[in-house]
């Protein structure tokens, strides 16, 4: 094999730490114990952040309204379970397809304009959905949320237990699948074309690539994954609410991704773990004002520089 071929193959090869991560994930299933509920939340958050990484880290679209797809997926899954069929996997697929459709429709809106325009449009879409969910309270339960969603057993055999063990296994498997799919996309010619678009749009068109179709496609994929994450939350907690569409959720997931790092696919996972731990630690200490410390953390993080956070020796050096 020539050097070129070796290098190209190496790009897509599994790295040792990816495999190690997989082993850790597998082990966590057995040792979850009383932390299963927390781990479940982390897995869902990680998947949500992964979906944002696809558009933010790889395609460069700054979105402050990604929760639109998360909350939408949650409602779809909850409504499906309540009115149609309580099977979780079918509901998951339905939520995924619905979110993908929503993503495809709204992708039209983010194709043009400056960063500010895109920010506003994504904010706007999430806000519109929030208002809709609020006003259509006969369907969504309005401000009280959609309660009493009873899920059937997973694969017909595994009941969702109070300790969350089934829930965590379910979410973890879905997360792993999501990572696997995202990974293949990212290493494909399509994935590289997204990075090219992000790096230098002018150059990308000059090698014959169409911009809009690609951005729409990745936006749709990201929406589908976010919807899946939302559906997981609804299914494992038995409940869907306006909180899933709230601005706070869009801001939090962006923070998760920024902590973990964008553009290398696993930032969502590391970020979700760090974020949840941070949240639990700080909330235990000051439950009401956790947002303050979050804000301070953000401030410092941005001033120091995202990429320098993990290299403390660069903090004092001038940019």
């Amino acid at each position, binding site marked *: 094999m020539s050097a070129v071929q070796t290098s190209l193959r190496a790009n897509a090869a599994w790295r040792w730490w990816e495999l190690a991560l997989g082993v850790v994930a597998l082990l966590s299933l057995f040792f979850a114990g009383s932390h299963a509920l927390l781990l479940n939340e982390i897995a869902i958050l990680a998947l949500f952040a992964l979906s944002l990484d696809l558009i933010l880290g790889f395609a460069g679209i700054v979105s402050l309204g990604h929760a639109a797809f998360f909350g939408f997926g949650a409602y779809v899954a909850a409504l499906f379970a309540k009115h149609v069929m309580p099977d979780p996997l079918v509901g998951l697929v339905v939520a995924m397809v619905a979110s993908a459709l929503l993503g495809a429709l709204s992708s039209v809106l983010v194709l043009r304009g400056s960063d500010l325009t895109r920010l506003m449009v994504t904010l706007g879409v999430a806000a519109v959905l929030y208002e809709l969910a609020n006003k259509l309270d006969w369907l969504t339960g309005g401000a009280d949320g959609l309660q009493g969603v009873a899920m059937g057993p997973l694969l017909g055999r595994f009941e969702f237990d109070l300790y969350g063990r089934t829930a965590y296994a379910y979410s973890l498997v879905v997360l792993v699948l999501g990572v696997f799919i995202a990974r293949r996309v990212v290493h494909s010619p399509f994935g590289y074309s997204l990075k090219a678009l992000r790096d230098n749009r002018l150059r990308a068109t000059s090698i014959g690539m169409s911009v809009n179709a690609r951005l729409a496609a990745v936006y749709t994929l990201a929406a589908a994954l976010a919807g899946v994450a939302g559906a997981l939350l609804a299914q494992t907690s038995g409940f869907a609410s306006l909180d899933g569409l709230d601005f706070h959720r869009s801001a939090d997931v962006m923070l998760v991704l920024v902590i973990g790092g964008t553009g290398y696919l696993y930032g969502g996972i590391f970020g979700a773990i760090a974020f949840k731990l941070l949240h639990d630690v700080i909330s235990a200490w000051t439950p009401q004002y956790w947002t303050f410390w979050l804000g301070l953390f*953000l401030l410092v993080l941005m001033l120091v520089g995202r990429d320098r956070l993990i290299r403390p020796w660069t903090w004092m050096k001038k940019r």
Partner: protein
Amino acid sequence: MLTLLFDGIAYGMLLFVLAVGLAVTMGLMNFINLAHGAFAMAGGYVTVLLMNRLGVPFLATLPLAFVFTALVGALLERTLYRPMYSRPHLDQVLFSLGLVFMAVTAVDYFIGSQQQMISVPSYLQGRFDLAAVGIGKYRLFIIVICGLLTLALQMVLSRTRFGSRLRAAVDDPRVAQGLGINVNQVFLMTFAVGSGLAGLGGALGAEVLGLDPTFPLKFMVYFLIVVSVGGTTTITGPLLAALMLGIADVMGKYYAPKLGAFIVYTLMIVILTLRPQGLFGHKGAK
């Protein structure tokens, strides 16, 4: 209906004064500042605290709100904002989000989360009728003050040396610097005045918009709408956008209360999709 129009205009003028600083900052420093609402909140609280705890008369609190917020703005610009100018927009968004979170929770901690009540002086209360239009005295007051401020802004921009320096720096900061314009100073002054105006707007708006620690987050979207729809290259753009927004919101809440803010958001999405540079901006503007 005309009364609604009048109320909408008042709301719009207020939004304009609140948001104009953001528009200019965006156009000048290419900085997306989501914390702008926090300055407005600061001005509102200054007025409330001065009036309720120190018994300062309302009219006197207004300039104080402006000055205080302008000073805070100047301080933050020099220390925190300046290093962030050359960063990618995502970083700026997260940075300013962090500031907002801190401001909101700090106010909650020190002052409490309840709505602040102020009582405007009696000569500004009440309404009178003028040819089938119900004129609220306070809203009339807002329109007059904001109108004067707009005129003053326009004059500063077009007649003073600072104004022409500002316009040059917005157009092209590097060229402006090459011409000997102290761009840093222009940035500082502009940011300070913009924040001061926001503070003044917050003070004026405490009575009509309500004031509590969630103010910056609640109204952030509206400010951003004014800026993105109005464009960052002119003053009249945001003015018209703010008026449109104010009227649309007031009318919407009256005629279709079920839909609420839905109309405003949808309108914004439609406008930005058809004209991504805003209604009054031009292509290539930030």
